[in-house]
Each structure stands twice: as C-alpha cells, then as structure tokens.
C-alpha cells in the first residue's frame, strides 16, 4: 500500500525538495506550510508519517507536534522532526512534545526515506 507522508515546512524550496525525494521513493506526499496548516490537513487526512520543521511562522513544530499528539487518533502517527537546529534543548523539547525522531538538515534523501520506512513499518 502506498504510504502517505505529510511534510510541514515553511520553505517552499524545502517542501519541493521533500516532495521530490519522497515521491521518487514511492510515497504519496501532502504538504503544509506551517503547523496550523498541517493541523487543518489532519482534519481530513491521516498520513502514515509526518515530517515537520521546527522554526515556522504562525505555529512552530513544537506546538504542531503537541497538537498532533493531543488527539487520540493521531497518537500512533510517527512524527519526524527535520530541522537545522542542533540545540539539545530544542531536541529535548521536541521529544517531550511527542516527536518520534530528529533529523538534522541537510538531509540525505535516501536516509530520510530510510528513516520514514523504519518508523512506519
């Protein structure tokens, strides 16, 4: 079954990059340009994995992950954080918010795909 990935990033270049890499790996890709937009999409869609950025306008990655986890039905969705942040505090916050994994940009598409496969299998 084709898996659906929701990517949440405010940079269009990054979203394009993710879509390009993930579609090439055979995933269906949904895109949101910040946390609030991501939540809107989650009203109607249920992705298999979520990949989110941290620094975004309107609603950042922490708020987004918390909101995702706040919903019973979305507890099981793996959320990978894809960010340029290397700050351990931030990573801890992401973990506390309920992130499944943490990937530091620049990402290697093959390894991102691998990470997604791992958390979604």
């Amino acid at each position: 079954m084709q898996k659906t990935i929701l990517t949440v990033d405010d940079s269009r270049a990054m979203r394009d990059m993710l879509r390009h890499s993930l579609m090439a790996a055979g995933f269906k890709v949904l895109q949101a340009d910040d946390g609030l937009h991501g939540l809107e999409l989650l009203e109607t869609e249920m992705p298999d994995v979520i990949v989110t950025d941290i620094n975004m306008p309107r609603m950042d990655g922490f708020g987004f992950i918390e909101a995702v986890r706040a919903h019973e039905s979305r507890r099981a969705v793996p959320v990978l954080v894809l960010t340029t942040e290397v700050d351990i505090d931030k990573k801890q916050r992401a973990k506390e918010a309920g992130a499944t994994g943490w990937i530091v940009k620049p990402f290697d598409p093959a390894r991102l795909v691998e990470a997604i496969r791992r958390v979604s299998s």
Partner: protein
Amino acid sequence: MDPMAAIRETFFQECEEQLGELEAGLLLMENGTAEAETVNAVFRAVHSIKGGAGIFALDALVRFAHVFETALDRVRSGQMEASPPVLNLLLRAADVLADLVRAAREGGVADAAHVASLVVEFNQINSGAKPPAPAPIPTPVQQWEIIFTPRPELYAKANETALLLRELQRLGEMRVVLNASRLPELAELEPEGAYLTWCITLEADCTAQAVRAVFEFVEDDCELEITQALPAEPALVPGSIITGDNGFSFEFFPPVEAEEEPAPEPEPARVVQKPPTQEVAAAAREEARTATIRVDLDRVDRMIDLVGELVINEAMLSQRVLEAGLARASGVAMALEELEHLTREIQDSVMAIRAQPVRSVFQRMPRLVREVAAQTGKQVRLVTEGEGTEVDKTVIERIADPLNHMIRNAIDHGLESPEKRLAAGKPAEGQVKLAAMHRSGRIVLEVSDDGGGINRARVKQKAIENGVIGPDAQLSDDEIDNLIFLPGFSTASTISDISGRGVGMDVVRQSVAALGGRISIASKPGLGSTFTLSLPLTLAVLDGMVVAACGHILIIPLGTIVETLKPKAADVFPLDNGINVLRLRGGYVPMVDVAVALGYSERRIDPEQSVALLVEGEGGLRAVLLVDAIHGQRQVVIKSLEANYRAVPGIAAATVMGDGRVALILDVDAVLRNNRNETARAEPARAELTLQEAI
C-alpha cells in the same frame, strides 16, 4: 527545467524574500518599533536561508548564516541586547548575507575578506556569553576501532559504505584499511554479493553512542564491532549524537519513552486560543499569502510578447478593413473598434503584471545613507516619498545602482559638514529626499538635498583642467551644472571611497539613458540640488510620433519632442562646419536632417518643404530634426534590434506598423551626438530590409 534546478531556483527566490524581511525587520528593530514577532521573523529568515543552503551544499552561505543566526538567537532569547553597535553589525551582516546569496546564485564569489571580518566581529560579540546551545560535555579524544562488514541486504537498501565513512569522518581523524581477502575470482563474483570488510581507526572526542549512531540504520544489515582502544570512557551523555552543524544526524527517540510520557491532554482548541492580536496578524498574513501567486518572469514576458503581437495584428487588421472601404458604421468596423479597445486593455493589464512599487529599491536606501553618513561624518536624514509608485520590474532593477550613486553623491558632495551647516544657519542635520511620482506617462524620480548646491566656480575650473571645455568657454549656470554629467568629470579633489568609485555622474546618465530615461539637475547655491530622473513606465511599448524621411517610416519617441515647427528659410543659418542652425525665439538650435543622418539620402531637404521637430535629448541638448512629413502619433510595441538583427547606431529599436511594415525607432540622443561628428551611414536602411524579411 530539471526538478533540482527548479527547486534551487525556488530556494533563491525565497532567499530574496527572506532577505527583504530580514532587512525590514532589522530596520524596525533599529527604530525601536519591533515587536517580539519581528525579532522571530528576522531569526527565521536567516535560519531558513541556512537550512535551504544546506540542501544545496552552499557551505560558505551556511557557515555565515550560522554565526549570524547564533547572534540573532541570543538577541531573541534576551541574552544580548540589540544595542546600536549590535544592530549595526546585524545590518551589515544582512548585506553580506545578500552578497553570499547572490554569489551562490550566480556562481560568483563574495568578498571573502569582508565575510571573514564580520565573522570575527560576530565571534567577539558572541563570546563572553554563555553559548546558545548547551555544549555537549567535552570528552577527551579517544581511539575507536571499528570493524564493519556489510551484508548484501545493506546494499539492497540503497546504503553506501562511502556515505557512512564520510559520516564517520566528521567525528574525527580516521584511518581506513580495506580488507578484500574474501573477494572471490571474477567468475565466481556475485554481482549483488558483499565481500568487503573495512577496518577503521577513529580518533575522536565522542562517545561510543555517537560512533554507533553513524551505523544506526545499517546495523541490522552488517557485522559491526566497535571497540575502544583507550580505557575509561566517560559517562554517556544521553542524546549526545551530535555531528557538525552541517552534518547529517538522525536520532530515533526510543518509542518506550514516548509512551512513558504520554502527551498531556490539552484541550484540542488550545491551539486556536491565541491572543486576538496574533490571530488577526496571522489572518492578515494568510490573506496576503492567498492574494498573490508566484509566476515565472519568463511566462509573463512571453505573454507580453504575445500581447505585443496581438496589438500589431489588430492594427494590421484595422488597416485592411479601412482599405477595404467598409463604412465606419458597418458591423465589422464596430466589432473591430471593440477589439481594439479590448486589446489596449489587455496590454495595459499585462504591463501592470510587471509593474512593481519602487519600495523595494527605496528600502535599501536607509542603510546606504547610514553608512555614507558614518563614513563622511555628516548628519543625514533621509526622507522618502511615493514608495508605492509602480514601475516596470526591469526599470526597478536597473535603477537601483544609479540611485545608489546619486544618494552617495548627495551626501558626500551635496551636504556640508555639520559645522559648516551650523555656520550657514542651517540645522546640523542635512536632509536627502528621495521621491517617486508618475508624471505624464513617465515615472519621475527625484534625489534632492538641502546642501550647498553645485559649486559652479569649482565645476567650471575642473572642467577646464580636465580639458572638457576650453578655458574661455562662456557657459550658462545650467550648462555648468550639466558639466558634471560629462565623462571623466569628478569634482572631488581626492577620489573618495564614497562617491569616487571610478563611476561618475556620466555613468549614471548612461545607465538612465539605456532605460530610455533622462536626467537633469537643478541647483541653487546654498540651498541644495535636485537631480531628476525621468523614465518610461515600461520598456515594452513606446509613445511615438510616426514620421516619414526620404520614403522611410520612422518613429520618434514622443517624450523627446518639445514641439513641431514649420521653419522659414530666413531663419536658417549655415555654420562653417556644415551644420545649419535655426533661429528660434532669439536662440539658435542646430538642425539635423534625419534622412541624411541615417544615410537614407545624400541631399538635404529644403527646410521650407520639411516639417521640423524640436527635440530635447539627454543633458538638455536640443536640436531640430527635419523630416518630410508627420503621419501621426501612436503607441508602438518595441522590438529589440539586437535580438532580431544587431545594434544600429542612431536607431533604438524597431516596431511593426499596422500595414505590416517595419519602422525603426529613432535614438534621438545618438542622432544628436552623431550630428556633432557627422558620419553618414547606410546601416539603418540595411537593418530595415533585413528585418522586413525576417518578420
């Protein structure tokens, strides 16, 4: 375009936007009107650029963005105060960041020394404070022995040893020995088999966990032995999988932990319950986002081209219908009129797509003013007006440099020092005003200062010294003022770093002229100078006068025409150098026979049989152009000569008339200049023929 190139382009477009936000935000911070969100937005801008730059391995950009971001993060978190010196550094850093982005985009190189000096400054302000990120507990350098033997599955999952080794190398010094002893004979070699073992000695100040993390994804698909060559490994630091800034790392949080700490059960609506101000701001941003779309400039230009063709075709059709002798009230003629109307509207709408407010250029000026003021020790206030005035994108892009130069000049040469100003009874702070407005179908930009005005005695003396004018030349005040536009002219006694960068006002004049614009100056001693740029709103259409010269149809840009005349033989006087002048209201204006100037004809037409157009070129140079007749006035679509033929002296561009014939658009300035050192040419006639065949 291949997808990666397209994504790269998107990234650079985003960079431009981020740089704009960065600058705007920093300026707000400088004015003291920044809100917390502004500081966040500024941080995010640099952060996004860094993130994107990482994807495309733009290392120089990543490195600089990183130190920049570190400083911003400290401002954001309140660890560092946004004091004037800090803001000054941040503003300069924004400039450098823009340079680096541009260099990356165009494949050029930014000024490395400048970048390095800013990095040093950043390190200075960043040091002495606690580091923004809690540094991982330093571990002494240790030696690790790693024996790595991939299994075929590892390769089947698109993993590569080289990538893993590269990751490992980021941790420290590494020696690799390949053990290929299991490699069979070629005949027995399985193409998808795995036969190699790598023995790696790594010297790094990291934990075993960090080393293992490199193999995180492949450890199930390989034999992996990691041993420590030196004893006494310090306590493991949880989550210390750290690679370089630029490095990839992935950490899989143990799922157990996630379950141990069930997410709190906040009200789902909590997210939406934000303070109303934020909500409003967010709504406004949302609106701004949905109200615009991003379109490739190529597509817009293609459309402009097509609309140009449409306009020409419509004109041709009208002509045919007219020739067919249909009555004006006939259905065809009326429908045609409607079509003409629509075509014009489409044309205007399409042109409006390329139009942008001059704000983007104006916004760059406050910083420039600040810099130049600091360098010259002058106090300057910049006043801008008409930032919303819209003009063609290309005009905007090309006007930035000339404006830059004019503002530098206004501060450096125009304004006096605070002491002099006070002595002259003026406020110590000088004013430079930058204004934009629409005036009779053109955009007018004014740069004015309230300085000392042009020092005419010095200008004249300099011009004589430089051999620009003769020692006994009698010049009016206006003519003296206009001397500064001549090539090689500079009044600064020493070439200053500010305005004497090898470019003078003549370069400004040339770049303005290249845009179909004109520049003029008005100066009052003791009160200041005003430079006025007049530019066409668009570079795609032109209002022109259709004239005939020796059987050829020519277009003279309407903007250059002052008036039309019917000369009398009694007012024409020949000069020794073969040029005729026309007496006009007490003055004398040189006459140019257009047909002769363009090489259509050898013989001059009789002025009394001709129509004369008084034109004014750049620098206020005037002449009377003689043509056979005037056919009317119309808007023409500009077709580049360079793109379809080649540049022709005396001709600015070409267009296609309603009857399908090519008409050349006269380059009035070139013709006026050529008139001084008269050289006849046949080039325009040839260009016309070639184009006629091509179209």
